[in-house]
């Protein structure tokens, strides 16, 4: 098993480099001269002297050929230097460190909310196939996957924040609140709406997926064997069917983790949540080259880690792979 993971991990390394090249090339084709950006933002660099401009371009390696630029960048990244954000005037690593926890709180809560809703709903609608419950969830699932996430977010704001006034319209915290529990409650109130919106958007497709997976397993011969043995219905579903259905389900649930970070980009924008998503969006929009590329790479790494996690969970459940033999 250790060998298997070592192999899977080593496989990720070339993928990581391939991703970094693609992201690097795309980011380098972004419009906007970084130097002009800097000049606009920092009057001290304001100069029209061609000689001084040339020096600056050289200093920032702006005219190097792309491969050279890539390796210069790679070298500094691998030594832990992510560069300096031209927009926020601070090291990229500090920016990410300050925003990352906010995004993690949002995405993890949303992920859990999605899970808590999707699992029981999906299971029940598979077990009670073609029942009123199944039809109802099917209709809601269809509605769920047919709505743009931002639209759903805005409707939620209008209903729960503007009309009902239960939750704040935006932001992550109210200034001037003191005391641990007060701060905690305040944070929670801010978190509820964006986390629910982000989580529930995913529920629709998960419910469909869980339903399909479980139905497929319920069709298997070994489930029939369990019934023929006289195993009670509930036990057949939980012990025999669900455990098998969990293999594809946990895989997809782990693989969808990156989508939460992607979805967070929109949700953070709608709710003005100070997280990575907004940071990245602002970076891309304003050609803050170092910041944007670091954020993208960071998300790519999260994707790769989720793949590894999905693999790990998969192997934990399935003895066929646990024992070093793929398939059956």
């Amino acid at each position: 098993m250790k060998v298997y993971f070592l192999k899977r991990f080593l496989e990720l390394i070339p993928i990581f480099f391939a991703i970094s090249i693609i992201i690097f090339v795309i980011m380098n084709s972004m419009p906007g001269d970084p130097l002009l950006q800097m000049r606009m933002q920092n009057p001290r660099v304001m100069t029209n002297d061609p000689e001084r401009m040339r020096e600056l371009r050289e200093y920032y390696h702006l005219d190097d050929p792309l491969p050279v630029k890539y390796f210069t960048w790679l070298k500094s990244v691998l030594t832990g230097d992510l560069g300096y954000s031209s927009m926020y005037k601070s090291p990229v690593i500090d920016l990410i460190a300050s925003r990352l926890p906010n995004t993690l709180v949002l995405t993890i809560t949303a992920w859990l909310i999605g899970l808590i809703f999707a699992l029981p709903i999906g299971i029940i609608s598979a077990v009670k196939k073609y029942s009123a419950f199944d039809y109802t969830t099917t209709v809601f699932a269809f509605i769920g996957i047919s709505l743009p996430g931002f639209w759903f977010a805005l409707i939620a704001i209008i209903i729960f924040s503007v009309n009902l006034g239960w939750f704040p319209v935006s932001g992550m915290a109210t200034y001037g609140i003191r005391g641990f529990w007060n701060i905690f409650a305040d944070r929670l109130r801010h978190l509820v709406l964006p986390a629910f919106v982000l989580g529930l958007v995913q529920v629709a497709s998960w419910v469909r997926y869980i339903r399909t997976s479980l139905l497929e397993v319920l069709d298997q011969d070994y489930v029939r064997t369990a019934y023929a043995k006289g195993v009670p219905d509930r036990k057949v579903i939980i012990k025999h069917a669900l455990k098998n259905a969990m293999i594809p389900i946990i895989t997809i649930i782990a693989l969808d983790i990156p989508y939460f970070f992607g979805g967070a980009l929109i949700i953070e924008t709608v709710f003005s949540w100070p997280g990575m998503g907004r940071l990245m969006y602002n970076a891309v929009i304003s050609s803050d080259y170092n910041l944007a590329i670091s954020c993208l790479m960071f998300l790519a790494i999260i994707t790769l880690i989720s793949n590894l996690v999905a693999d790990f969970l998969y192997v934990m459940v399935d003895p066929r792979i646990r024992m070093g033999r793929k398939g059956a």
Partner: protein
Amino acid sequence: MPKFFYKRKLDEIEEKARPVHINSYRQLVWTKFKSHKLALFGAVVLIGVAFFTLLGPLFVEVGYEDMDFSNLFSPPLTEGHPFGTDELGHDVLVRVMYGGRISLFVGFASAVITTLIGTIVGLLSGFYGGIVDRLLMRFVDVMLSIPMFPILITLTLVFGSGIMNIILVLTVFGWMGVSRLVRGLVLSIRETEYVMSARAMGVRNGRIILRHVLPNVIPIVIVSATLNMSYAILAESSLSYLGLGIQPPMPSWGNMLQRAMNYILGTTTGTNPWWLTVFPGFFIFITVLNVNFLGDGLRDALDPKFVSES
């Protein structure tokens, strides 16, 4: 005792013979599709939406850029403006029709192209296997690991946000799912006896792919094409929400919605122009919903596995 001692012969006979009521696969598909009420409903609604957006503009004289300054923020059913007008006096009905053309075109075109690319990659990868498969699938892994939405944003900034560029961006990062699906299916088809026997008879690879593999892949490809279409329409609207989709004054459902968002909490004059949000939102919702219904119905109808289910 040999296995299936008379079954062997029977299979041969069965291949030629056809059950009496179910005359052909195509007829079976149609029977099942007809009995799938939601799918039928979806197809009818989509045809309706298509007619509305394609033919609708022929019956009105106002263009999508024409402004009626005497009517800003007019509510629906104002004379001459059944869906009302926006902040510049654009007629919302007209813009919904023209916007629909663009949204549907973006959705349809990117669905067709992503499905095409995905199918080709999946066919090659699954059929040839070996090094081809490994290289292509690693490439798919790489593409899938790139955070999609931020890259879409970046690419629209790089290429600009014209219709063609939006389609390009959505297709470049949209084909991987289909290719994985097709590859998986081809892998199992490749091992079937009819492909084996075609190979044994020396049929060329290209012919095997076209004659034996492709027809079996088509059902799943059609279904995923519908899913891609609904995804593309939603993605365009999300890009538009961030101001990166189709650019005004050219309307799309996404960018109409985005501009309406500015007034969602009411305008400075105190009115709340809900119609600006409701109409394009409704059309996005209805279109995507029915594309999904259609996809679901096609999935059930095209899959021979579900014959005996009610």
